[in-house]
């Protein structure tokens, strides 16, 4: 138990230090410490075994410790509203990534339209709150359903096409979505929708900075907590789905459709279910993004973001629930951390992804073999 708590405290300190270290020396020190923390369990099998056993035996402690750490993060980052925002963004990508992972990882439906479905969620919130004056809470709850409803357009291609052809259809869908949003008058064209009202909870507006336990936190801490809750619930739901009969059926049809059909799995029903549930979470992520940032415009949801979403799940580990969390928490903040590289940032980002695929194709946290106890 001590091992678990010490390890988690160490990870927490490293994460905070990694985010906040500014001076070159502090940054170097953190990088060395981080590398050492990764290298020791990787190189010494006994340390690795001890850690694995400790985490296995004290799961509850580990989860509670992780939750405390996640809740403590805004306190550690209180001096930097920007980093609180980035952390919140990472949590949104966890939500979106879990939805997309159910489609791409578990069911093998190559959906490159993630950005479009997030955009549908975001634009729905914008239209409902600004044009129809709905309360933001209601709009955020309806938006994922709209994403699912629009997703019905792709039902036939999902069932009829596979592999590269499905990839093309979904890419075409993102392009169509972008052109439409750019040219419709009611979506504000290239300007998008501005002044989306923010969420309120018991009269507390999410844009006002909260004071918790006597500590003044940046305003984004509100959204951090909300998104943490959403990301946690999403992860629990997708985990249960993944471990359920549905998840097993989806894995089977991903690996061999004919064999799946021989086992009595309805391909149509399984694929449609996975696609709709996935779109729900992707739309939810987009909707929360809209209320957090306060505006939506076409470039916020272009094809490049589909690529980021795809890299989150592949670098994390295809079909791996914890992998998605890890992927989102690494890939979203890291480019921000390396802002000092200026224009070389995206270039290196692309290179890192290519290298990862070549040398660690299973991802950082590969999906394990299913265990049934």
């Amino acid at each position, binding site marked *: 138990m001590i091992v678990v708590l010490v390890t988690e405290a160490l990870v927490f300190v490293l994460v905070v230090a990694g985010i906040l270290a500014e001076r070159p020396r502090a940054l170097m020190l953190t990088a060395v410490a981080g590398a050492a923390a990764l290298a020791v369990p990787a190189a010494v099998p006994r340390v690795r075994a001890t850690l694995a056993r400790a985490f296995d035996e004290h799961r509850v402690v580990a989860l509670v410790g992780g939750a405390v750490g996640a809740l403590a993060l805004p306190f550690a980052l209180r001096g930097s509203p920007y980093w609180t925002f980035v952390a919140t963004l990472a949590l949104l990508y966890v939500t979106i990534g879990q939805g997309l992972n159910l489609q*791409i990882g578990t069911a093998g439906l*190559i959906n*490159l339209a993630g950005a479009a479905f997030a955009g549908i969620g975001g634009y729905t919130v914008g239209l409902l709150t600004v044009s129809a004056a709905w309360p933001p809470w209601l709009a955020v709850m309806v938006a994922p359903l709209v994403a699912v409803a629009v997703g019905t357009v792709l039902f*036939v*291609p999902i069932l*009829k*096409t596979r*592999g*590269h*052809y499905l*990839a*093309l*259809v979904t*890419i*075409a*869908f993102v*392009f*169509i979505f972008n*052109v*439409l949003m*750019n*040219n419709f008058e009611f979506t504000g064209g290239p300007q998008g929708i501005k002044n989306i009202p923010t969420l309120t909870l018991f009269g507390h507006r999410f844009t006002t900075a909260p004071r918790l336990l006597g500590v003044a936190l940046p305003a984004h801490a509100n959204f951090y907590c909300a998104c943490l809750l959403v990301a946690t619930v999403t992860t629990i739901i997708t985990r249960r789905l993944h471990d359920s009969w549905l998840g097993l059926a989806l894995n089977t049809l991903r690996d061999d459709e*004919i*064999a799946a059909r021989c086992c009595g799995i309805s391909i149509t029903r399984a694929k449609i279910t996975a696609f709709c549930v996935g779109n729900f979470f992707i739309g939810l992520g987009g909707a929360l993004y809209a209320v957090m940032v306060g505006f939506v415009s076409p470039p916020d949801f272009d*094809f*490049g973001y589909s*690529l980021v979403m*795809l*890299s989150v799940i*592949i670098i994390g580990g*295809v079909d791996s629930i914890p992998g998605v969390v890890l992927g989102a928490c690494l890939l979203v903040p890291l480019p921000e951390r390396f802002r000092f590289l200026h*224009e*070389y940032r*995206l*270039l290196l*980002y*692309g*290179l890192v*992804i*290519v290298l990862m*695929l*070549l040398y660690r*194709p299973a991802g950082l946290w590969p999906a394990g073999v299913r265990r049934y106890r």
Partner: protein
Amino acid sequence: MPPLELLLQQALNGLMLGVMYALIAVGFTLFFGVLDVIHFSHGDIYMLGAFAGLTALAAATAAGVGSGVVALAFAFLASILVTGLIGVAAERLCVKPLARASPLMTLLATLSLGLVIREAVLIFYPRGADPKPFPRLLPQGGFEIGGVAVRYENLVILAIGLAAMIAVDLVITRTRMGAAIRAVAQDAEAAQMMGVDLDRTVDATFFIGSGLAAVAGILSGLYYSEIHFIMGITGGVIGFSAAAIGGLGNVYGAILGGLVFGLLQTMAAAFIPRGSEFRDVVAFGVVMLFLIVRPRGILGARTVERV
């Protein structure tokens, strides 16, 4: 019924776009043939071809080449060579090592490679963020025939595109290397048993495909008089769409698909209200519908799934 002249005029414009799309699509379809992968960075290779051509033109001007024709010929050759080699490098580094992995891996790897190429041009080309004016080297002016305005430069672009396609067709159907490419596309293992060098054949295929993309890049520079580092994104997606409409793996299908896509765009722009804004919606919508109805493309081979 729209007037016939308008229809013909739009058909000519569509043909112009179609030739460029077809040249990109042939690359996609050739790569799919030999390695069964979609090389998504091909669109950015096409962009690279345009920039290599522009650089070669600038170099030719700096070296004091007075004649436009010579400069242009030099630009084409240099760009085909450079872009072809970069295409081979991309294949060696990023496509072939992953060819046996799931399509998802090659998808993300080549999309990321495209990002790298795009960013590299943005950063390392002088003032890479701005659209670059492309010199007008083709004869200006034109004539009218039956109410259709035909510009000389359009004819030259068509002729160059057509020549490139015929050249590729000859290479594939008449040469030893072409026979090797066709053999590998049919069955890589059997081809190797017959003594075909797989690595060399794949390299040659990527050189040819990327070279064609370079031709398309320079042609698009000549046509629009402007090139931009982001042109590869839409260029790639359209090229892939064209290859898929035609049937992946089939060279003639890819050419047909490119022409169909170009015609769809121009017709949508001309005959649908606010069509110029929504032309891509129409074109991509048709592609989606088409893939639903005929998932293997116009000329694609019917495959029977075996267990």
